[in-house]
């Protein structure tokens, strides 16, 4: 009798936590989004679509993710391959790589803004060593592509570490026997990488991609600091609607759009990145 209910009891705190902190706000957001003056209505939905920044915000959020995430995955793979070798000072390098992970997106944005602005470190350095005579402009509506670049740089610097940590952990789990066996059969480095390491990393890649994509859909702090609303993103516009215009209904639509995008992309990853462990596939 006791053992029958024990598992449920054990997960009860987690369930209560999720219901209270995720479930309840989610339901509230849906109510806010799809009611108007106390009636069920699509008014907020139509108003949100009619805001001139909705479509651009949607596009920019996806575009940023499309540039940032693959680059991060690529960088994380290279870094992990380097870090699985032994070399002097490896621990120091590992710490240095992970430090940005502890920095918030807003702080990261501020750091990169001061670095890249007209009067910033980078421009001063380049002017002083004589490479350029006029500062490179990164900020302002008319330099939106450069602002986009600044956001990409900041995000690569700050949040590649999370992908790297997951991939590195996955790589260290791969049994040396496979690699040694491949070597015996004469597989070169690239063959080993393509045929053994990357396939066996699939579960880690999947986790890393899902986590990064969820965060990427919520991208906000760094964009707000580096480009303000020059580059609208869904979370930023939701925040603007909520705190500046105080339109809770439209803000909820923005929030739900982020949720919907996350669910759809998450489901796509699960479907297309099926990751059978070599050990269990029959």
């Amino acid at each position, binding site marked *: 009798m006791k053992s029958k209910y024990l598992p449920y009891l054990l997960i009860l705190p987690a369930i209560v936590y999720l219901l209270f902190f995720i479930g309840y706000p989610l339901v509230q957001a849906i109510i806010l989004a799809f009611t108007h003056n106390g009636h069920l209505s699509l008014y907020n939905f139509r108003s949100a679509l009619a805001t001139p920044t909705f479509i651009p915000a949607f596009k920019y959020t996806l575009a940023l993710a499309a540039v940032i995430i693959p680059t991060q995955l690529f960088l994380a793979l290279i870094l992990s391959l380097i870090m699985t070798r032994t070399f002097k000072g490896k621990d120091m390098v590992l710490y240095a790589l992970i430090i940005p992970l502890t920095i918030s997106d807003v702080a990261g944005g501020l750091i990169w803004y001061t670095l890249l602005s007209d009067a910033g470190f980078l421009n001063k350095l380049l002017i002083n060593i004589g490479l350029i005579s006029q500062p490179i*402009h990164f900020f*302002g509506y008319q*330099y939106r592509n450069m*602002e986009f670049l600044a956001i990409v740089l900041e995000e690569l610097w700050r949040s590649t570490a999370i992908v790297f940590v997951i991939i590195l952990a996955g790589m260290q789990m791969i049994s040396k026997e496979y690699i040694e066996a491949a070597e015996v059969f004469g597989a070169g480095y690239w063959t080993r990488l393509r045929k053994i390491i990357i396939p066996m990393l699939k579960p880690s890649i999947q986790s890393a991609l899902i986590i990064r994509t969820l965060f990427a859909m919520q991208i906000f702090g760094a964009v707000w600091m580096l480009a303000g609303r020059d580059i609208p993103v869904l979370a930023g516009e939701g925040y603007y609607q909520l705190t500046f215009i105080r339109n809770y209904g439209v803000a909820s639509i923005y929030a739900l759009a982020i949720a919907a995008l996350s669910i759809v992309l998450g489901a796509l990853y699960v479907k297309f990145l099926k990751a059978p462990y070599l050990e269990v596939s029959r």
Partner: protein
Amino acid sequence: MIQTLLPPFKKETGISVDFVPMSYTDISTKLAAEEKTGKVDIDLIGDLHGGMDYYASQGWLMDLNNMPKLKGRTFIPTFIKYATINGKLVYIPWMSATYVMVVNKKAFQYLPSGLTEEDVIKGTSKWTYQALLEWAKNIYQKTGKKLLGFPAGANGLFVRFLHGYLYPSFTGYEAKEFNSTQAVQMWDYLKQLWQYVNPASTTWDAMSDPLLTGQVWIAWDHTARIKNAIETKPNDFVVVPVPRGPKGRGFIVVLAGLAIPKGAPNPQAAWKLIDYLTKPSTQVEVLKNVGFFPTVEEATNAIPNGPLKILAEGVKAQESTSDALIVMIPNLGKNSGAFKNIYKEAFREIVLQGKNPQTVLNKLAPQLAKLFKEAGIPEV
């Protein structure tokens, strides 16, 4: 601030004060209920002009003309004019804030012909928006840099420049002539001006840093947001009145006042507190600590030499210009965010995206009118 202000008052008069911070809606509801039942328990209200205007329209405020004279101070006449509604003095001007221009002294080397340093500092009739354009253009042509800047970032206050400075200067009103011919001329002007504005303006929330790092030489912002630049390098900058347009020198004054509700239990004690809070020495303390400016002339003169004096003199010069066209931020309650958004949207579409001003303004005008209608106040 309240903690440092109130104890000396209690020591002086023996009156103890309970300070209750309340939101505009809360105080409005509370007053409505209390005035209706006749059981008032608030002695003194401190609020912005917009709030006071509403309370007075409901007949909730005492006429302070009948109170004893407050000695040793001269209130700035414009403020008294605002505080007098239908012949009744409904509040005593308490403190004010505004937005001004800051000029790096280096910029004076590039003044366009016909404009002198004195014109700018005193705010003469030659200090016009056209002159500002010529000046910024001249700086750009001589230095290759766009050294005029605005806080047009996501958290910046540039929207106040649009509705409270440019609009009244060009059309005479903040919202009433939103899509008029003069408004179109104003937007055409801003488009021209923007060619010489530092493009990074759209990412700036406050002008202090761009001024200090030399990214701009001429800037417009709220006094509190440029204070740091002047305190850090008081010898580099001057604070000057804003330019004027065809309809006058439009600028916003944020004015806070002190009022006594009708039927207040202790009006005499409240009057003593008003007396204390508007004394020049108290007003200078408030300026030092929270950056709100005095409403009495003696206080401005009592500010010790230094950065604050530079700021206060600029503010005083702006308020004393003969063509001053003072506007207040309309009190639109929950619609105030939507109000600002309309001007931001107009700016983005017309100036940044280059759309036709008339088309954009005609599209937005009905939305603006609706906000005033919902708030139940006439367009200003």
